[in-house]
């Protein structure tokens, strides 16, 4: 699913989409625990999180995650958006809860990551 479609499915605001318009997201991972995010081996993953700080962006970068959804209207700081823009990570800001976002995307065919 394209990031634009994800955004319209969950009524999210889009930041820093440039260059990521054609990424096909196939999986999602919901977590506030960056330690867990760093163990993901899958690709084309969207991260759904309630943790809005600079390490959310850094962690996504290291884990090769190109799109982050911030749930419950957690707003990214300008520092976060500058870093996201610089490394090419799209940030979606969504009013829904993490559970709700996860449920909608699961229903639309987005898969969980593989657990090893």
């Amino acid at each position, binding site marked *: 699913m394209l990031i634009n479609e994800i955004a319209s499915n969950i009524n999210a605001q889009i930041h820093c989409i440039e260059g990521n318009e054609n990424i096909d997201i196939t999986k999602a991972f919901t977590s*506030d*625990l*960056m*330690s*867990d995010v*760093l*163990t993901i081996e899958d690709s084309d993953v969207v991260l759904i999180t309630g*943790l809005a*700080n*600079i*390490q*959310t962006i*850094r*962690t996504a*970068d*290291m*884990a*090769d995650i190109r799109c982050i959804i911030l749930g419950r209207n957690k707003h990214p700081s300008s*520092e976060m958006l500058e870093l996201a823009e610089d*490394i090419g990570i799209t940030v979606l800001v969504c009013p829904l809860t993490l559970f709700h976002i996860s449920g909608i995307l699961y229903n639309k065919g987005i898969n969980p990551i593989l657990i090893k």
Partner: protein
Amino acid sequence: MKFEYKVQGGNFSKAGYASSDLKKILKQLNVNPAIIKRVVVALYEAEVNIVAHAYNGTITIDIDDKQVRIVLEDQGPGIPSIEQAMQKGFSTASPHVREMGFGAGMGLPNIKKNADVMNITSKVNVGTTVEIINYI
């Protein structure tokens, strides 16, 4: 090629700077993306450990045509039992570190998983040294 970075304990806003930089360098060198991910995840975990658990540290990165060798040396409290610290779930992270999304006790095992070679030595009240080698 050799690179050096300073890391400040407690400063989460800068944590990951060296890892991001290394990612860019390895991309420019056309290293296999799967290997890049292993290297930078291992480095990032070790970098965050200095920020989360130590006072300050130095990262030295050596890249040649065969391998990336990273040494992280910190001044800090050290690790009393490395065997215990290497267990999944063991963590002494402060509430502040947990608020930042870390402190699950997953970092050292994750470095071990992603590095081709990992060596760790530590002296209580002096500091910790982590060596990470990945073949490229």
